[in-house]
């Protein structure tokens, strides 16, 4: 305890200087405490972990500090560890999206999830330490000199010797040195400090280190060990808050725009995400429980990037005028609205005030946005949303989001060859996850609507909006046209590409004022068109 207090006092003294050095990062003052793995595990592995970062809170391991005390000054160790930890926050990886991106690139080379995580962690450490050594005055090289090293760590240390120009006292057999020289040479050519090249740098790093990691993995398996923890702390999802994970997934979905890649990564991190509380309960990704459906998460996150804001509660004008405020009276203007009190009984320019009247306003009837029924085509001519990015599903997701954000409910009718059973109906709900689940369903069969499915969904609902996304190659298109002709609901039809069916549909409904049709020439137009139309709908009801 006393030791911990002493270490904390050192941190308190060093902290202002460190903050200034790193240009005032927005992280709280570090603490000293016990850091996992536990003491028993440390004994077994023989090396303590120096620090851990949980949601920006850096905690230094007192055991580690005590052990390194013999080799290096306490202030030096603490400063080096903090420099390292702070640089993870300020430079690499900085956010969860970058972390995911690095992992994704590493996985392309390594193939294996655990090895990809391992190599990504090494890359992150090398980048952070190199940045710190170059840009700030730091004791990190000294720390590396005293840390215990396995085979990989020796190679990394040799790399540091080469790229930092320092002597870290790496003692190695000639044979080992020969084998490692080539790896170090390759690693030394990587532009770690160029953020824009991190994706390719990560792959290069992984490629170069792969043989060594495979070798080490074999050795570990042979002796039945788990491998040493990284003394500078592991980089796992604990470092990020829930909101950072949420934002990171959103950015990653938008950046990659590739469902298989997103899915692969999310599934790899599914355990960690669940432990971080990022499950699928509540439709918003909170809470533990249900396993994460990566496909649904992908469309959810992507659609969030295209959201429109909440509609305000509309105000209604009541129709009567009442005196509201004063304005000066001008010669020649009528004076029946004169306020004799504020005019001091005088009628003269500069003194007399007249009342300006305004229509009374009050909270109107909250009509709210109508509910929406989304009809989405999942026939064989449409893209399977669980295999590749389907802009049709993305468009439907944007529409669903927009209505849900305005406190409306959304029903989904997913159809392929509906009369033959190729359909899924979701009754009106505000449960995100259920809506997305039905949207993402893919039948891949023929294309036909069963209008009898639609009638009960529409019947009895006041002012229901209809949203249909299809390529219009519908077998019973004529019935659909006839059906639309009869109903008065607002209908938005979005179809992809030009084809005779779409033209036929357009011709048939062009006179109907409640139907808007959008031909999407580029798939990228879908979110914009969908949102434009919905924004128009909401704009009409929102006066303030």
């Amino acid at each position, binding site marked *: 305890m006393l030791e911990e207090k002493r270490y904390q006092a050192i941190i308190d003294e060093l*902290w*202002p200087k460190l*903050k*200034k050095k*790193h*240009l*005032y*990062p*927005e992280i709280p*003052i570090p603490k000293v405490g016990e850091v996992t793995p536990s003491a028993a595990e440390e004994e077994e592995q023989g090396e303590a972990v120096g620090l851990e970062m949980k949601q920006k809170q850096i905690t230094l391991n007192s055991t580690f500090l005590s052990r390194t005390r013999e080799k290096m000054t306490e202030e030096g160790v603490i400063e080096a560890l903090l420099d390292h930890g702070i640089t993870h926050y*300020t*430079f690499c990886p*900085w956010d969860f999206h970058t972390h995911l991106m690095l992992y994704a690139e590493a996985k392309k080379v390594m193939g294996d999830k655990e090895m990809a995580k391992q190599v990504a962690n090494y890359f992150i450490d090398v980048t952070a330490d190199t940045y710190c050594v170059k*840009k700030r005055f730091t004791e990190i090289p000294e720390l590396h000199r005293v840390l215990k090293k396995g085979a990989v760590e020796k190679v990394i240390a040799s790399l540091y010797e080469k790229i930092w120009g320092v002597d870290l006292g790496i003692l190695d057999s000639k044979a080992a040195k020969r084998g490692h020289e080539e790896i170090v040479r390759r690693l030394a050519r990587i532009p770690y400090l160029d*953020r824009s090249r991190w994706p390719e740098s990560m792959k290069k790093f992984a490629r170069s280190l792969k043989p060594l990691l495979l070798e080490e993995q074999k050795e570990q398996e042979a002796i039945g060990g788990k491998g040493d923890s990284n003394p500078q702390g592991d980089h796992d999802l604990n470092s990020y808050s*829930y*909101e950072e994970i949420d934002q990171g997934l*959103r950015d990653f979905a938008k950046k990659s725009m590739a469902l298989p890649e997103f899915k692969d990564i999310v599934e790899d991190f599914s355990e960690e995400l669940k432990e971080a509380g990022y499950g699928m309960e509540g439709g918003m990704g909170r809470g533990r429980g249900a396993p994460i459906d990566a496909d649904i998460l992908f469309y959810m996150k992507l659609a*969030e*990037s*295209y*959201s*429109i*804001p*909440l509609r305000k*509660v509309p*105000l209604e004008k009541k129709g009567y005028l009442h*005196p*509201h*405020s*004063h*304005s*000066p009276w001008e010669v020649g203007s009528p004076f029946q609205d004169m306020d004799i009190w*504020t005019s*001091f009984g*005088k009628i003269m320019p*500069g*003194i007399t*005030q007249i009342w*300006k009247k305004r229509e009374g*306003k*009050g*909270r109107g009837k909250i009509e709210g946005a109508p509910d929406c029924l989304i009809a989405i085509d999942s026939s064989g001519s449409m893209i399977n949303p669980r295999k590749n990015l389907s802009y049709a599903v993305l468009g439907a997701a944007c529409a669903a989001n927009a209505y849900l*954000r305005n406190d409306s409910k959304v029903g989904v009718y997913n159809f392929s060859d509906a009369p033959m059973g190729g359909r899924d109906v979701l009754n009106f709900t505000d449960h995100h996850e259920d809506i997305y689940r039905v949207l993402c369903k893919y039948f891949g069969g023929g294309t036909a609507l069963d209008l009898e499915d639609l009638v009960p969904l529409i019947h009895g609902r006041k002012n229901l909006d209809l949203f249909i996304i299809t390529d219009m190659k519908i077998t019973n298109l004529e019935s659909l046209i006839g059906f639309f002709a009869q109903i008065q609901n607002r209908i938005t039809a979005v179809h992809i590409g030009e084809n005779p069916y779409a033209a036929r549909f357009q011709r048939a409904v062009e006179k109907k004022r409640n139907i808007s049709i959008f031909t999407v020439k580029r798939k990228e137009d879908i979110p914009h068109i969908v949102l434009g139309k919905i924004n128009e709908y909401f704009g009409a009801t929102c006066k303030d």
Partner: protein
Amino acid sequence: MELYQFIHDHLYFNRPDLEIKGERFNSTILFSLLTGLKKGKELIIGEPGLGKTTSAEFVCSLIYQFPLGVIWGSEVSGHPEQTEEKIVGRPDLGKLNRGEEDVVWTNFSQIPTKIVDEINRLPETKQSMILDGVDRGNWEYLNEMIINEEYCLFATANYQDGGTNTIIAPLVDRFDVMVESRYPGANLSFLIGKSNRKDHILRHVKYEKELHRIFNAKTPYEKKIPLVEEVCNSFGEYIHETLGVKPLQKRDRQQIRLEMDDTDLDQDASAFTRMLLAELSFCDRYGQKRSLENCEEGCHYTGYLCHEIKNCASNRLPISIKQYGQALAWLLEDSEVDIEHVKSVIPYTLAHRTQWKDEIVSQRERSKRDDPFPIFLAKEAVKTVSQRYREQSEHLKDALAVGSKIFQGESLEPLEGDHPLYAEIKKDLSTQRS
């Protein structure tokens, strides 16, 4: 700091929500103090009954040595029927009937500390009138004018609801800072409810009456000022004797302002501010940001703040940043305004001046936060720019240094870089050349 501590401990109970230089502060008290010291204009928002007006009153009372009764008597409350006569001054009715023009100035126009309650309920014309007056320190009525030597404005506003006007953008831009007076939490709130009212400690019937008499006297305003000062000094001495805290006299305030003005921004603070301003005003395609122009898809500068906002940063923003940065550095007894001061102050100077794009609003409005949404967005923006600055600081400062050398006649090339600031430096240099 003594004043801050006194208000925090005895008058305005609330949690600290801001950390600067290892010390924790409550933003409402802190920025109100800085506003009072720096002759600024502060907009205080918050739910009804959370101490928006009270916090301003306490600060004004201690900084300007006015008893609370006088401050209350000079407040303008925001309602649509407010008139210029109630805010600025009215004709002397007796003289008016005799055909003479003479103005009876209101307490509001005479007193240096101006508090407007619920400014958003005033019609736009009145809002504009008050902001113009405080901007210039001049109050005019019937061709007569008084000039306030020192003045500061505290305006409160509830969150927008039915029955209120919005403060339009050109007017809200004139406020230096916006802060929220927050709910102090159940425990502190209970404590506030349990204890007796504290405002009596800043009251003094005799001095209040004296000051009312002086303000209402039919003497020229210039002659009233020394009299008011004398009474205020007496009140200040009374406060010092009874409460142990020394309010500020006029010469103290002047001295403080001189010292604040002498505090310069260090190079990092300056470069960082310039970087932020560049991102808030730059548009590669249209020359500058404009509210009615939309961003083009595929613009090279998509990763910067200019892509997330609709409007252009006004020239008042750097003024506010500098003023409050200096004030904060002075308060913390630092010799220079450094980047931490500036980063602490910017969100509050920026929050009310930025119009964010719809997609940004919708992506973030449900984020977990402690601050009201505009301040939260501003803090996030500062964090993002701060990260960019960390990576580029040396090169950016070098670009500015090279710009200076070129400006002075050296034959050099401006440095290249991806950030909008590099483009702005080039523009300035080519403008200067032509």
